């Protein structure tokens, strides 16, 4: 009964339903995109009606929201934050800078593509994306979760070596343990 395939489906459905309606967001306000987060959360656009609320620490968070460009110095902190999060976890790349570097594409101290360093579930493009597009990105993530396709942590674990190689190319003084979650 418990190992029955159909009953597992029901459990999965309930778990995914609650996961998608309760997203604790760790908003990593790196770039200029951080200014859009208060607008998304407060009374005009009110992201809490979808169950999206801010989390105070990475341990409690489900979604890592990278808002904007990542300097090579902050990449290290982002990796630490990402690895401290508990599975299942999701990453949203926010703004053009996380997709291809955006207006900083030829800068000497920013990274260009976020998915070289940590896996990304949903990208929201725009410079800056307005709160409507942020919410639509979250809705897209909710669809992925309901279908069971958001397997960010699993992808990271399976391709850890590739991600580590890329990360160590950027971070010269790597003083973190290789496995810290």
């Amino acid at each position, binding site marked *: 009964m418990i190992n029955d395939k159909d009953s597992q489906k029901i459990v999965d459905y309930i778990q995914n339903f*609650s996961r998608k309606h309760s997203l604790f967001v760790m908003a990593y306000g790196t770039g200029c995109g951080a200014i859009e987060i208060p607008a998304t959360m407060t009374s005009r656009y*009110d992201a809490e*009606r979808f169950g999206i609320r801010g989390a105070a620490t990475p*341990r*409690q968070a489900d979604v890592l929201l990278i808002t904007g460009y990542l300097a090579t110095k902050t990449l290290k902190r982002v990796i630490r934050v990402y690895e401290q999060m*508990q*599975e299942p976890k999701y990453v949203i790349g926010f703004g053009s800078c996380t997709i291809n570097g955006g207006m900083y594409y030829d800068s000497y101290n920013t990274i260009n593509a976020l998915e070289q360093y940590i896996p990304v579930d949903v990208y929201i493009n725009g410079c800056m994306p307005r709160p409507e597009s942020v919410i639509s990105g979250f809705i897209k993530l909710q669809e992925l979760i309901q279908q069971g396709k958001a397997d960010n942590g699993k992808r990271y674990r399976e391709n850890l070596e590739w991600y580590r190689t890329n990360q160590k190319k950027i971070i010269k003084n790597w003083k973190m343990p290789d496995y810290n*979650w």
Partner: protein
Amino acid sequence: MEDLGLKIFGAILTTIMAFAVGMTYGGIVRKLTARVQNRFGPPFYQNFLDLVKLQSKKTNIAHGFMGHTAPVWIIIASITVLMFIPILNGNLWFPNLNFHGDLIFILYMMVFGSLGMALGAGQTGNPNSAIGVTRGLSMMVGYEIPFVLALVALMVQYHTTSIQDLMQIQHESGTWLIFSNPFAFLAALFASLGMFRYSPFDIVGAPAELASGPMSEFGGKYLGTMMTGGSIFSFIKLTLYVDLFLGGAGNPDHIGIWATLAGIGVLLIKTFTLYMVPVFYGWVSPRYRTEQAIRYFWGWPTALGIIGLIWAVY
């Protein structure tokens, strides 16, 4: 044996009810807060969704034995105290382990969960947790004084330390203790502002400042268990206040099923009204600093408690 079975069934029923009511109240408060801030807000069952999500997290990290068991201490303390609180007046469906002196026992036991939490948070090694724990314990020193003064006033006034007896006195005389000793009620009400940790006394959690304080290293199932314990605990505090000051709910002379349901209805109305006091106060207040909070509790609330004690003696 049948009696024992009924008691165990009643204990499980009490726990489930406390959990469901506490969680739903939390959800309703989130919804109301959103409406006050001109938002649409999450549905009232949002807390249940959060709990299912937290319990279905796949990985959980622990930082040693106390960190691993801290949420369990909170649950243990909550359920233990719940077993000593009469939910309905003299009802067989919700039995309790009432004895002469349980009011004093509860005073001690209510701190137990927080102490377990403090030890667990200390072991995680997060500096935010340590600051949160010191703030929490300092604030407890603040609000425990008016709270204890209020309870001592009741004990002195009626020469009893049993919650059941105090409820019986209210039932027989027909006067609620809020009218017999209004100053004690006011002192206890001010203390409840600190107990519920809404603004301006949310200095322990302090989301923007301390990163949720003692909870900062607890995620997933640990956080979910803490949420459960906290919900049960908020129901306990509300029911204790209703039992002591607002005449309790239910009638010991009628213990049929309809009388029980009516009693639960009355209990829900009274507890929800009482719960709105710290919530309303929180909506219009910013956060205090720790020393301001302690000064607040040692000011008028303590004075009211002392007046209540004098009122009780004379």
